[in-house]
């Protein structure tokens, strides 16, 4: 079930300050490391109103023509508002990972909730919530190899921030 697809469309949704645009960029960079085509956009697309912060990432072996996500494979929702917006897509087969610290728990086949924010906070830095949640997402859906994302983290961060983010990534993976 974890077979890698040719194309992935990913939405990372939450509110400003949760680092989702950066997470989208880092996910895209991980895919570039794997030699794939990537388009990353922010704030716009199939949903763009309200206080949402939104990053979209499309990863494909082929040329990516339209730049916006049309049929998401997976959505990360870190706030109640974000989850509210996308929860219905779970019934259509879209895998949704959400943060139970900030969003009300839901039941449903494709809905997976974890207290990402609380766990990140317990790890010692709530700012690592983006990487933590990406870790969980990647463990379930192989959009990119976790090792590729770890490589991006190693390039971007130094010292304690590097350690924290790598710890967040592995902690996220272990939640699955």
């Amino acid at each position, binding site marked *: 079930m974890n077979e890698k697809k040719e194309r992935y469309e990913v939405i990372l949704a939450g509110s400003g300050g949760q680092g989702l645009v950066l997470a989208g*960029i880092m996910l*895209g*960079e991980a*895919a*570039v490391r794997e*030699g*794939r*085509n*990537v*388009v*990353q*956009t*922010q*704030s*716009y*697309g199939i949903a*763009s109103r309200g206080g949402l912060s939104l990053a979209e990432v499309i990863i494909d072996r082929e040329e*990516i*023509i*339209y*730049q*916006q996500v*049309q049929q998401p494979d997976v959505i990360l929702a870190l706030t109640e508002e974000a989850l509210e917006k996308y929860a219905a897509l779970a019934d259509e087969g879209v895998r949704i990972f959400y943060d139970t610290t900030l969003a009300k728990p839901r039941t449903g086949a494709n809905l997976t909730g974890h207290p990402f924010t609380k766990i990140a906070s317990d790890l010692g830095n709530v700012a690592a919530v983006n990487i933590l949640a990406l870790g969980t997402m990647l463990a379930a859906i192989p959009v990119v190899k976790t090792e590729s994302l770890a490589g991006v983290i190693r390039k971007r961060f130094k010292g304690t921030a590097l350690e924290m983010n790598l710890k967040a990534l592995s902690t996220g993976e272990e939640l699955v």
Partner: protein
Amino acid sequence: MAKEARLVQGNQAMAEGAIYAGARFYAGYPITPSSEIAEECSKVMLKVGGVYMQMEDEIASIAAVIGASLTGAKAFTATSGPGFSLMQENLGLAVMGEVPCVVIDVQRCGPSTGLATKPAQSDIMQLRWGRHGDQIVIALCPATVNECFALTVTAFNFAEKFRVPVILAPDEIVGHMRENFSVPEPGEIAVIDRKKPSVSADRYLPFAADADGVAPLAAYGSDYVFHVSSSMHGRDGYSNNDPANAAWRVAQLHRKIEMHQDEIVLTKSFAVEDADVLLIAYGATTRAGRAAAMEARKQGIKAGVLQLVTLWPFADKEVAALAKKAKTVVVPEMNYSGQVAGEVRRVLGSGAEIRRVNSYNGEIISPQDILKAIV
């Protein structure tokens, strides 16, 4: 051999393209959604021996760019609609004085302050007619991060070759999107420098055009002494009120572009050979158009896309040739009034069937929006 691929933002790619083209002077005033270009230039200009200046406004920015260009720099600025409006008067001087320079206008939703972070393609007429007086400039429009880089180099090449301001006008989507991209090696894309005078210094006339319609341009501080003027001027650059001189001057500013129309007008086409439905698109809307055309073909409708890479001068010949073969022409664009659709109408005449797809609320046109106009 291209360098290692990176995930690069459109705005970043334009800054990198400018440096690749040899730009060594940037003056600007920050404005969303173009500011990443200024931020990159503020760092890189220090390292490549160039100069970055944050000016007091956009009026000063383009003025400083023109001053630096006349001093021998490849110079540019970046802005968005409100700032671009402020630059128009001085851009007119760059037209009149035949000063090579590049302006990047990352288009956002207006009018006025509008929706500062949202995309639009509604400066198309401002690109062409923003300045008073009769004049012409070149305007280019990228649809991908790769084109952001390549067309910035092209913009400098055209500016240098034809002594004219060139405006690069991505929409906000293209300016802010990130794609995998590798910077070409030096030499991989041709870089053109302005023609320098070769006559003796006492015989140099800064506005005496060669057979190609363009006069060589010296630099302040070289052995050549010269005048450039916003006022009507003769071949020597000194003011001249003679009507015959004015007629020559205005015609000359147009002719040097008209002479090279075929070289300047760049288009790309996708599956147009047998197209019954011809989509004419530019910028990010090209991508939605291509996706829509592919979907239409799945449904048995032969659709293709003509991408206008050069917006001005307008691709009259290319539009006319392809539209002749198609039954329907569709023009998707992010403005209310159909700024490019109007040009297509001018080219094709009142009888042609032209369908418009417009968005003007800051939302992107989707393939589904376009498909509705095709099916």
